[in-house]
């Protein structure tokens, strides 16, 4: 992602209320698309239910009836739509074919794994990116700066799930340092919490590493350019003339002013990071939303797929709105809706 894009992304953000209204409109469109897609498909979306070969697991007649009544295809479209929306408002996401359980219950256990993965990875790649970018901007043109530039280009070019495979092969299979996949060891489920926490953390290292390595380059690049620009401004020269130590100059005066583009970039990237996390989850068999979507699509479990999609989408858009609010709070020029 280039610095021009980051700036253009910022241009595109209006002030709070208009932005919230726009996100609400988008969410409604997404919900409606989610409703229409299975119904626009040629034929009966539930035709698979009656086909004994269509599903990997046979369904009981009651489960089949439950799915039929959830979709309610024999009713008029408007009524189906109303039922869909009221169902969503009550947290009813439908019935999963492959799990034979409510979609909401299947997904409830999974969202936290994805949130943990994306949260930890985001915090780490932002922090690391800013530090690397600062080091790079401070020694502009030096060997470190050039190496980081090439490194950041490579970092943004490796597909996350390919890097995941390489990490599994190197750190998991070859060196046997870390587990190959999953989120925790079954053997430790009943263990006291410090051991379980350590186990969960160990399982998280590789997926987080894959996400951090593929995202840190962009942040470092944007942070470097923002910082280099700030360092060239008048107030830095004044601060230097006052005799402030260089270290204070960089961390106290220049860096806070260079963080805005980084926040903006983080918001812009969020969708890509979530998508990267989905692929990484599949590569590591990590039990999050991405793996749910993958399994659902393999098993043609459309209700589960749609539920997982909706939860992912709404969470991402909500987080994006939050990042926007943070941006507004950080930039004094945007305060007061000017």
């Amino acid at each position, binding site marked *: *992602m*280039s*610095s*021009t*894009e980051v700036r*253009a992304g910022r*241009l*595109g953000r209006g002030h709070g209320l208009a932005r919230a209204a*726009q*996100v609400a*409109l*988008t969410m409604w*469109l*997404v919900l409606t698309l989610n409703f229409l*897609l*299975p119904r626009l*498909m040629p034929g009966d979306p539930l035709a698979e239910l009656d086909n004994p070969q269509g599903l990997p697991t046979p369904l009981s007649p009651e489960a089949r009836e439950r799915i039929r009544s959830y979709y309610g295809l024999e009713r008029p479209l408007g009524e189906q739509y109303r039922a869909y929306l009221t169902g969503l408002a009550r947290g009813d996401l439908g019935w999963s074919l492959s799990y034979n359980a409510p979609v909401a219950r299947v997904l409830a256990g999974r969202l936290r794994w994805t949130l943990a993965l994306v949260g930890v990875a985001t915090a780490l790649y932002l922090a690391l990116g800013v530090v690397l970018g600062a080091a790079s901007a401070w020694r*502009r*043109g030096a060997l470190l700066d050039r190496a980081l*530039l*090439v490194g950041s*280009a*490579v970092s*943004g*070019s*490796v*597909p996350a*799930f*390919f890097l995941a*495979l*390489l990490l*599994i*092969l190197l750190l998991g*299979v070859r060196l046997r340092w870390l587990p190959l996949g999953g989120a925790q060891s079954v053997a430790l489920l009943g263990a006291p919490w410090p051991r379980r926490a350590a186990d969960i953390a160990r399982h998280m290292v590789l997926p987080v590493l894959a996400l951090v390595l593929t995202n840190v380059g962009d942040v470092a690049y944007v942070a470097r*350019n923002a910082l*280099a*620009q700030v360092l*060239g401004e008048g107030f830095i020269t004044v601060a230097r003339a006052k005799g402030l130590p260089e270290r204070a100059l960089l961390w106290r005066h220049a860096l806070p002013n260079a963080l805005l583009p980084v926040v903006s970039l983080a918001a812009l990237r*969020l*969708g*890509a990071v*979530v*998508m990267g996390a*989905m*692929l990484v989850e*599949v*590569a590591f068999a990590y039990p999050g939303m991405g793996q749910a*979507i*993958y399994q*659902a*699509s393999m098993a043609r479990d*459309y209700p589960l*797929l*749609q539920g997982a*999609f909706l939860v*992912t*989408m709404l969470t*991402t*858009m909500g987080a*994006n709105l939050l990042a926007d609010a943070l941006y507004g709070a950080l930039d004094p020029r945007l305060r007061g809706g000017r």
Partner: protein
Amino acid sequence: MLLALWRACWGDGLARVGLLLLALALCAALLAPWLAPHPSRTMFDPLSPPSAAHPLGTNDLGYDLLSELLAGARTSLTLATAAALSSTLLGTVLGTVAAYHRRLGWALLRVVDVFLSVPRLALMVLVAAFVRPGMGTLLGFFVLFGWPSVARIVYARALAEGQSEYIEATQAVGASGRRIVWRHLLPATVPLAFTRFIAEMQHVIVAEAGLSFMGLGDPTTQSWGMTLSHAMRYPALLISPVWRWWALPPGLAITLVCLALTLLQLGLDRLTDPRLAAMNR
């Protein structure tokens, strides 16, 4: 203008490396039918290690992997170029027109905003799960979701250009709106549009690989993403050396082409953003 673009790419050391890498990939794609050791999709002994007859071995179906890789270059680069070119052209024209015609522009920008606030890859996953797209549908998807980001960035640039004094002067001597859009605003947006074109290509290559990996591509296409995801689904991949000639080459091919495009972008960034060039001097 084109000359300036070329100079920006060739003049910058890193961008030059990118250009050469890209040229290599393009040659491989163009000459694929002649370079490939075997006709596409012929079956040999499955899972044979690299040999003189099969420099990259064969996969579990007995396809020669070097031939697959070359055919994949063709598919992946064609799809990426076609999708990126279409969305860039569409986005550039719409963005420029939006900057000139205020009312039309307002409406267009609201549409753009809606598109941009949807995480587009997630949406593609949902649609792909229902539609199971072939190459044509995939191309349509990428254009549908690609043009808004081009339009947004081109709009901002054209708007700034439209406020400059020479446009006012052109209007004063009686140039038509159409002439101003096509002769002045549009050309001014070319470097930025080109940067977006490269970013879109990169996005398409990675997204196609990602969709394939999620099991949502067309299993019969020969693309890098499909070869890679097919390899990654092979149960014994981790415990046998086959990953070295099955998964590694397409993965590296994707990485290298994306790297080439990123390096080009770094060079272009300095052209479109003179402040960057000044900082690095």
